[in-house]
């Protein structure tokens, strides 16, 4: 890195402060998780984290988080597009509504979603005759995760869309590109890095979510238990070490998926020549 003159000096102290802060807030708690779990031998560790119930919970937690993040990527993009490109009455209100899942206590979200989608709820009563059950089924888990993940995609895509001039699209059209071509060749490549970031954030948040999911999941072993519930279950048996072992696996999978997504995002950015 070349040393250039900067308006504000102080690279050294700033980096030092950053690292100290990160260590205190992020690394220290994580290290304690690894330390606690390290009192298990490798075979004990493996038998804890690969027990059938725990394994089923990984499938549910990561599978549903992935599905929810994918749904959010599609609909979040649409929402962001709407908010940036069109003017309509109540736009500011809609804009503010997007952030609501950030602010609402997750337990409140979980209880209201359950009330809506239960057999006697506003929405549930119409779905039930169709044979669709949402509350207390794995599908309910996904609904809750879609709810909490929405703002992440919208808020990461929105600023990039705002930067993207409408002239690009007009230019593409004047050069004879169809609508689909314009979207796929002109708009999507520019948005992709931001979209991937939003996806990754929504995914990461969904994996760790407990409060809202627990009310709607049903918590039937092997079917609708999320991994954070397995951790709580172990704590409830005073099995601190087992709980941290499962937490460690969650951390590793989450970290690996975030790492992959970040890599993808860097690749997409390089490909389109946009450096974020």
């Amino acid at each position: 890195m070349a040393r250039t003159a900067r308006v504000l000096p102080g690279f050294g102290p700033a980096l030092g402060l950053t690292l100290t802060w990160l260590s205190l807030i992020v690394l220290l708690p994580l290290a304690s998780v690894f330390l606690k779990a390290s009192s298990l031998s490798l075979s004990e560790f493996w038998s804890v984290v690969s027990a059938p119930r725990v394994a089923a919970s990984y499938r549910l937690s990561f599978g549903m988080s992935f599905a929810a993040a994918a749904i959010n990527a599609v609909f979040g993009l649409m929402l962001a597009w709407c908010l940036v490109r069109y003017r309509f009455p109540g736009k500011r209100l809609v804009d503010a509504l997007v952030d609501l899942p950030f602010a609402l206590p997750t337990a409140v979200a979980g209880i209201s979603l359950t009330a809506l989608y239960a057999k006697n709820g506003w929405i549930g009563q119409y779905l039930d005759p169709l044979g669709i059950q949402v509350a207390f089924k794995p599908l309910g888990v996904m609904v809750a995760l879609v709810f909490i993940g929405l703002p992440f995609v919208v808020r990461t895509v929105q600023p990039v869309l705002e930067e993207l001039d409408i002239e690009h699209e007009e230019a593409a059209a004047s050069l004879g590109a169809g609508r689909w071509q314009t979207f796929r060749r002109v708009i999507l490549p520019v948005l992709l890095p931001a979209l991937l970031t939003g996806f990754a954030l929504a995914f990461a948040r969904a994996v760790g979510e407990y409060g809202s999911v627990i009310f709607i999941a049903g918590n039937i072993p092997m079917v609708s238990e999320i991994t954070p519930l397995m951790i709580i279950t172990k704590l409830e048996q005073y099995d601190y070490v087992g709980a941290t072992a499962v937490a460690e696996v969650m951390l590793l999978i989450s970290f690996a998926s975030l790492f992959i997504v970040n890599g993808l995002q860097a690749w997409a950015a390089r490909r389109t020549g946009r450096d974020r």
Partner: protein
Amino acid sequence: MKRSTLFRALLTGVAAAALSSVAWADQTLLNVSYDPTRELYQAFNAEFAAHWKKTTGETVTIKQSHGGSGKQARSVIDGLEADVVTLALAYDIDEIAELSNKLPKDWQKKFAANSAPYTSTIVFLVRKGNPKGIKDWGDLIKPGVEIITPNPKTSGGARWNYLAAWAYALKKNGNDEAKARDFVAKLLKQVPVLDSGARGSTNTFVQRNIGDVLLAWENEALLSINELGPDKFEIVVPSLSILAEPPVAVVEGVAKKRGTEKLAKAYLEYLYSPTGQKLAAKNYYRPRNPEHADAADLARFPKLDLITIDSVFGGWQKAQKTHFSDGGVFDQIYAPGGK
């Protein structure tokens, strides 16, 4: 030299004054309890404070904390300074003793009647008119009956439910463990939602309108009926159930440090007094000494055959290990291909 002695004397004087002012200041007591005792202790704390003032002249402020029993026990283990704990099951206090050494191992012998001044049991809450005709445990596994109970892995109350069902099946089948296991497995297959706590299950049954029968603590069932109106639900008392003994204990490690030992002991002993027993009955707990309670309150507790966890399951430690620990019977029932 002289000056320094004087100074030291002065300092001692100040320190003594400060100390005595501490002793004279209002004492506080923290009671860490579980969810459904909130109303009971609100009433009891006021009575006890008045009683303490009258007998000793000291003012005492009692704080109460409520939550899931296991979670509350973990808070105490992790350092929450509870003078007394009043939890849902002996196992949780056992673990405090085991993991933090703030309690002697024989804590349950410190107060009368297994340190449980009041008891409860497990009953059924059904919808008005009892449309599925549920009269006893055997009716629960009839096809088409949906049962609501919390997850025994996360809820102390659910463990009582599970053990009560097990005890019924044992008695019915001449102590055949395999048949008891079949019965409980069948019962669990008819549970559509395992909430993480007892209050969550009550909500699912009452607000979400899911299930035909809720397995509940008697005190919770009575409270639900009282609050939601007897026109919607009724209680069915099975032929046999389990004697639930929510125990109390002084957390000696904390009380010693805070100088509240005498107060904490008196507080818990007062639960056994006529006033305490009367309040327990009023708040839907079965009093140990029913002669002190109002007849109208007692009329709410029908007689039934009650077994104890010690006689059928050999105590909490053993029951926990056999049934609810990882890989235990509960896990085996839900394991793929298990029954």
